[in-house]
Every structure is written in structure tokens, then in C-alpha cells.
């Protein structure tokens, strides 16, 4: 594996399966009396959040604490960051504090990549969502959830499984990370959205495109609904909320068109009544809550694989820096 997790495209098939298999082992922990492992004792992980995100931040924090890491929450709000301190100075500060890893959420696409490539800090950089670029741990937890339902078992991938992703692909970091990872794992991805919410050049992405949700539903094993922000309406991406949900929203009638084994996923937070009706959101086929639980396991796996073994911080200062982390055995 690479030393950082910035993009889902950084993960080879072996890397991805190793993370999913490790997460599967770590998932057992939630059923134990003591939900804690000593593995990352003495490692310092900083959650550097420039954007509000209670869910992702909490998920990472639980994962870090279950692995006994020292957790520092560095929130941009109310800190010197909001007073004009640059990303560089923040990173230098964290480096001076001895951060072994920085989990970063940033409103600017590419900020984690910048951090990883710079010599501002030496720890691992884990992307917890950057602008409209990527959210790789979300894609991992989505793949983990799909594998459990569609092809359970260690070492299994998602070969041939049909995944339909519906909604605001243009602004979605979840969609971008998912298309990379799902392809790596052998799944077939179809994006469904109004043309205004698909990025230019998407015809060259490794996926199918459709403007017609109803035609795709019967050929879907996993349906992922993306959040659509109401503000998009004012920027003329679609005429009205009502028209959007009629054409692209998930409802009870459409649920019936899915194959019996298919699941409905949502990365949250859901906008009920917009892209998904309460009937679907609360149905047993909707995995939204399960995804949250799986997020902790997947993030533990990523943290363990990046920080659990020997890292740069353990190496002498003059040792050559490598861009990859080897996995023993």
C-alpha cells in the first residue's frame, strides 16, 4: 500500500481486499466486552477538519480510539486556521507535535494530495473527503457493505456485481471514489443523473451513463443514492425539487422494481423526500445505518495497515523516504 490514502485510485485490488478482509476481522470487535485493541498505543492521530462533518469525524475518532491511538481533534472552526493560518503552517504545527497520521477533511479538492506531497509533515495522510474530489474511506465502507450482501467471504471481490449510483455525481466525492474502487474490485458501475449533474468528460470514465432510473433498476444489485442539496436548484441544475424526486428519487414503487436481493445504499446524510422517501430509507433493504457501523471497521483497518507496523516515524531521520507501506507476509 502507499503511505497515504488520498485517492481510491491509489489502491490496487490486493490493497483493497486486504483492507476489506482486515475490516472484516476488526468488525468482530464491536461484539466484544472490551471494544479496544492496544495496537496503536503511542501513535498520535490528528483529525484535521476544515469542514463540519459530525459523522465522518466521529467514525474516525471511534476507530482511532478502538485502536488505542492518541487522538487530537483539530477543528478549523474557532482555531487559528479560521484566522488566516495557512494549511502549510497548520501542517508544520502538527508535524512539530509529532503527528503519526493526519486525517484531513477539507473543502478544497486536492488539499490532502497537497499535504501528502509536501514536506510539511512526515506522517501518513488519510483523506476524509476533499471538496468535490474524493472520499476513499467512504468508498471502502460502501464496498465492504456491498461485499457482505452480494459476495460475502474473505478474499472475495465484487466481480460482475452491478452498482447503480444515482444523483449529484458532479459535486460528489463519494461517486468519484466509488467509481475507482468498484472498478478495481470488478463491479460494473452505472451513473444515473440529469445531464446537468454529470461532469464533463464522464464518457471516458470506466462506467455506464443513464438518464433513466427506471430502466436501470431491474439490472441493479446495489443502488446507491447520493445526496442532492436543495441549493443546486437555485443554480439551475434542475427545475424544482418535485421534478427531481419524480425523475431521480427513490420511492416505494421503484423499490419494487429492484431485484429481490438488491440493496439500497446511502452515504448520508439523507435528504428525505428529495432523493429518497422515508418508506425506502426505513425499509430493511436500506443499508444506511449498517454503512455507518461498517465505516468504523473499515477506518480501523486503514489506520492499522498504515500505522500498525513500522512507519517512517520509527525510521532514523536520514533513512530514505518511500511512498509505499509494505504488508508483511
Amino acid at each position: 500500500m502507499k503511505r497515504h490514502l488520498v485517492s481510491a485510485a491509489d489502491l490496487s485490488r490486493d490493497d483493497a481486499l486486504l483492507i476489506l478482509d482486515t475490516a472484516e476481522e476488526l468488525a468482530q470487535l464491536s461484539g466484544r466486552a472490551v471494544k479496544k485493541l492496544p495496537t496503536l498505543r503511542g501513535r498520535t492521530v490528528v483529525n484535521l477538519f476544515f469542514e463540519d462533518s459530525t459523522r465522518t469525524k466521529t467514525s474516525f475518532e471511534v476507530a482511532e480510539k478502538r485502536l488505542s491511538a492518541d487522538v487530537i481533534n483539530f477543528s478549523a472552526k474557532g482555531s487559528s486556521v479560521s484566522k488566516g493560518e495557512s494549511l502549510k503552517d497548520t501542517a508544520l504545527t502538527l508535524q512539530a507535535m509529532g503527528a503519526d497520521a493526519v486525517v484531513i477533511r477539507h473543502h478544497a479538492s486536492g488539499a490532502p494530495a497537497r499535504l501528502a506531497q509536501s514536506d510539511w509533515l512526515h506522517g501518513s495522510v488519510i483523506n476524509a473527503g476533499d471538496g468535490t474530489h474524493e472520499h476513499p474511506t467512504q468508498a471502502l465502507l460502501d464496498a465492504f457493505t456491498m461485499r457482505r450482501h452480494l459476495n460475502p467471504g474473505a478474499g472475495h471481490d465484487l466481480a460482475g456485481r452491478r452498482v447503480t449510483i444515482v444523483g449529484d455525481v458532479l459535486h460528489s466525492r463519494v461517486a468519484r471514489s466509488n467509481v475507482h474502487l468498484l472498478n478495481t474490485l470488478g463491479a460494473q458501475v452505472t451513473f444515473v443523473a440529469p445531464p446537468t449533474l454529470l461532469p464533463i468528460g464522464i464518457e471516458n470514465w470506466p462506467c455506464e451513463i443513464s438518464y433513466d432510473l427506471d430502466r436501470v433498476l431491474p439490472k441493479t444489485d446495489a443502488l446507491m443514492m447520493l445526496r442532492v442539496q436543495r441549493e443546486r436548484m437555485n443554480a439551475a441544475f434542475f427545475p424544482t425539487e418535485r421534478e427531481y424526486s419524480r425523475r431521480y428519487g427513490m420511492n416505494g414503487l421503484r423499490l419494487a422494481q429492484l431485484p429481490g436481493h438488491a440493496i439500497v445504499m446511502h452515504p448520508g446524510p439523507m435528504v428525505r423526500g428529495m432523493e429518497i422517501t422515508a418508506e425506502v430509507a426505513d425499509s430493511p433493504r436500506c443499508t444506511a445505518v449498517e454503512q455507518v457501523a461498517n465505516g468504523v471497521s473499515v477506518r480501523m483497518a486503514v489506520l492499522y495497515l498504515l500505522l500498525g507496523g513500522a512507519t517512517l516515524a520509527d525510521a532514523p531521520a536520514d533513512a530514505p523516504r518511500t511512498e509505499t507501506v509494505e504488508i508483511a507476509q
Partner: protein
Amino acid sequence: MTAHRDSTPQDQAPRPPHQVLDGTDIARVITRIAHEIVERAKGAEDVVLLGIHTRGVHLARRLHGRLAQITGREIPLGTLDITMYRDDLRLKPARALEHTEIPPGGIDGKLVVLVDDVLFSGRTIRAALDALNDIGRPRAVQLAVLVDRGHRELPIRADYVGKNLPTSLREAVQVRLSDSDGVDAVLVGDRDFTAASRSALTEQGAQAAKPTEPHLPE
């Protein structure tokens, strides 16, 4: 790797490993340990067997089979991966995890018998005890090993020992089990030789999926 071995002076050449236990010996040892467990645990009523990855799991399964024959009952059997509790995690890149499976009845109030192939420094068992501590509260914990080769670095001893094997630190003990290595055998040889033959094995992509842990001091 091994090709030029003949050219080195005889007294300095790493000694090839010699076999100290064969398949029959191993089967006999497992039978004996099973009887000892039944005897000391008074019929093994509350025993839970936990095999420590990798070869401890195979041995625990065999022990489980013998115990079933002796007692006519299914003794709860599980597996334990101690990776996350190792004290040498930072010496190597992160390791892939093995499957930990605690039997449905759990371990609370039970007599847990940990099963491993070689007892050496004791550090693996220390990690296993830490892991157990997070999983539950057994009535007691005992340890069964196929080979005790000495050189303990922690105050740990085995309750059931297949064979005491006095070794020097220059030597390596290799346990091969048919489940993972195609054959049942315990070999002792020079560490250097073992390392060389291991790499030769790996290069040829030989029978074993994973080469035997040479049980070096950790």
C-alpha cells in the same frame, strides 16, 4: 542460495536440519496431551481450545479430534490471532490479520487451553494472554505446545509439552504440519541454514503456501 554450500569449509557450513519428530511421533504426542488434559481438567467439562495462528490452529484441531474420541463430546474449539497484541509490531511492516473465532459459548468462566506449536521466548503467549483479557474472563488459562525449546524471556511455562527440545540460539526449530506444509515433522537446524532454505523454498514457490516461522528470538 544453497548451491554453493559445498564450497564453504565443513566446520563453518550451516548444518542441514535433522528431524526430531516424525508424523507418528506427532500423532502420539497429541494423543498424550489430550489424555493429560482430560485427566487434569477432570473430564475436560469446561475446556475451550484456542489455537494460536498459524500452526497452533492446526494442532488445536487435531487435539480437538482426539478429545472427541476420548470424551465422546465436542470440546469448544476456536482460533486466536494475536497480531494486534504483539510487542514487535513496529519492527516490521503491518501484518495481515488472521481469523479470530471465539466459540459461541465464549470463554467466561471456562478453562481455556491455548495451543501453539513452539514455545520459545514466551512473547507470543504474553500477547495471547492480553488478547484473552479483552475477550473475557476465563476460570483459568493453560498452555499446550508441541515443542518447548527453552530460552524464555518472560515468566511463562507450558502446562502440556509434546517434547522438550534443548536448543542453542544458533538453531532454528521448524514445525511442519500436513495442513499447511504437506508433511508432519519437527526439524532442528542451524538458523543460517534454515533462513537459506526458506528463501530457496520461496523462490521455487515450493509446496508450502507460507514458509515455516523459524522461531527466532523476537
